[in-house]
């Protein structure tokens, strides 16, 4: 059996000195190249799980392994985030002071890469996402769908193996949502990238090859 790309072992996450238990014993493994949707009620712990998968946070107990290395122990979280993971948020989270093309270069500043390379790579990614005429705009000059496409380009900047999206269509209308999901699944297929999407939308969840539901901090059987 091939070992999974990501593995969560009996992960718990509590806040407020244990008064709030966001995750209570999650076991999960994700294979390389998989497309998985996470759904569940609001407050069930979806984002918390995604943050653990992305190395943004550590479990209170249990562990998360990336290619058999413990995140936060054998593998440094900063390195993991900068080199292996791309994040996409519901609220886009672009820097308002930077042009689209500069926003895409932001993650590349954390790795040693020449300035010229960075700009060229950003240009290439934005073109791939159909934004060749929007590269020089600031976020407030872009539509919501365009902003999310810039954010996707930014998530791809360092060529990650895993793409994590937390309700990427939550702020978009249905037509734009469909377009964004088409882009994400397209990237997943073309690049063989592992894609994990947290969503409320059943249609999106159904489109994924694998679907899990979280209820009260646990993965539903």
């Amino acid at each position: 059996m091939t070992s999974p790309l990501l593995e969560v072992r009996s992960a718990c996450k509590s806040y407020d000195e244990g008064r709030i238990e966001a995750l209570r014993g999650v076991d999960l493994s994700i294979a390389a190249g998989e497309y998985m949707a996470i759904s569940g009620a609001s407050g069930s712990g979806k984002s918390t799980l995604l943050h653990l998968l992305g190395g943004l946070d550590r479990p209170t107990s249990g562990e998360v392994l990336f290619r058999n290395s413990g995140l936060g122990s054998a593998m440094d979280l900063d390195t993991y985030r900068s080199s292996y993971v791309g994040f996409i948020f519901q609220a886009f989270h672009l820097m308002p002071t930077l042009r689209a093309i500069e926003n895409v270069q932001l993650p590349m500043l954390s790795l040693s890469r020449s300035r010229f390379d960075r700009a060229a790579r950003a240009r290439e990614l934005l073109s791939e996402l159909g934004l060749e005429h929007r590269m020089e705009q600031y976020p407030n000059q872009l539509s919501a769908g365009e902003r999310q496409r810039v954010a996707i380009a930014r998530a791809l900047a360092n060529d990650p193996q895993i793409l994590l999206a937390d309700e990427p269509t939550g702020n978009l209308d249905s037509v734009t949502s469909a377009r964004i999901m088409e882009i994400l699944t397209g990237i997943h297929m073309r690049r063989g990238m592992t894609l994990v999407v947290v969503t409320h939308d059943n249609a999106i969840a159904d489109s994924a090859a694998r679907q899990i539901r979280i209820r009260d901090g646990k993965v539903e059987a």
Partner: protein
Amino acid sequence: MAYQLSFSGFVWRNLWRRRLRTLLTLCGIGVAIGAFVGLVGFSSAFEQAWLRIYTSSGTDIAVIQRTFLNTSVDESVGAKLRALPVVAQATPMIYNVMDLTPDVNALAYGWKADSYEFESLHILSGRRFSDGKPEVMLGDLLAEDLKKKPGDTLEIQDSPFKVVGVYHGGSALEADAVIMPLDQLQQLSSLQGKVSTFHVRLRPTPPGESPEQYLKYAQAQIEASLPTLRAVPAAERASNNEFVRLAHASAWGTSSIALLIGILGIANTMAMSVFERTRELGILRALGWKRWQVLMLIQMEAAVLGLGGGLLGIALGWCALHVLAALPQTASIVSAHVALPLLAETLGIALLAGLIAGAVPAWRGAQLSPVEALRCD
């Protein structure tokens, strides 16, 4: 257009985003640095002027009291000094600051009429004074200030003195001074038989010896024969006398306070900026920025504020020195030119101020947990 984003470009964008706040912070640190440049520049010009008193008259060594409390030297020391083989000439003098009129105070020197110090004075009108007579000579600037010329009478501490000459001195400090017979100043300051210092010209350096060695040797000779006194080389005396020390201390003291306020200004700006950008800093961490990179970002913003303020301050200080150089009272002491080492020192201090001010905000920014920062709106 390439639109290449660099680390420093991002720093610049963050500062430019809050232009007004950045500008105000720059003004704060700029005024502090300006005060530093102006005051320290002025006090070192003062020291230079003091040094010229010695160099223009060829004084190699000043002999002063060893203890701090008793600052006067017995006049009888002169004979012992002159008897030393290294000493060519030794001339006693008193200096003091005196109120001449309610708004004019000046340096007053008491010299002997045969003092070698006269060699560096250029007598513009009148003549040298005579020992034992109530006569004074005025520096050209002071004479102009007081509107006195030879033949006029000047009241000093209720005693009438006859102005016998007006001179131009080798040092700016002499331009604003009054010189009178040693005995007259001794009487005025109740220091009969005492002097402030002896100025000593040494015999020429013997061949084969370096001037520094010879100076050390002469110092040792003088101190050996007069154990209660110190022989201080002119250059050291220029930087170490009470007036210059006071000028330096007040320059550094005042500008340190200004600098502290400037640093607090930057610290406040950076703390606010980190607070407002909490979520953005969380996003940067989520995008793979490491803790030290967030730290660097904030420190660089603070450093740019410090350096920018430094440049602004140098411009302000330079203007202040220009104003001082144009005022008649200070023109002769202050030159509008700012020494290069002072500029380098100033920029160093400005940079350091920025880094110190940025340290705590930067550390706090770097400590943020990415998840907590992202949750914050």
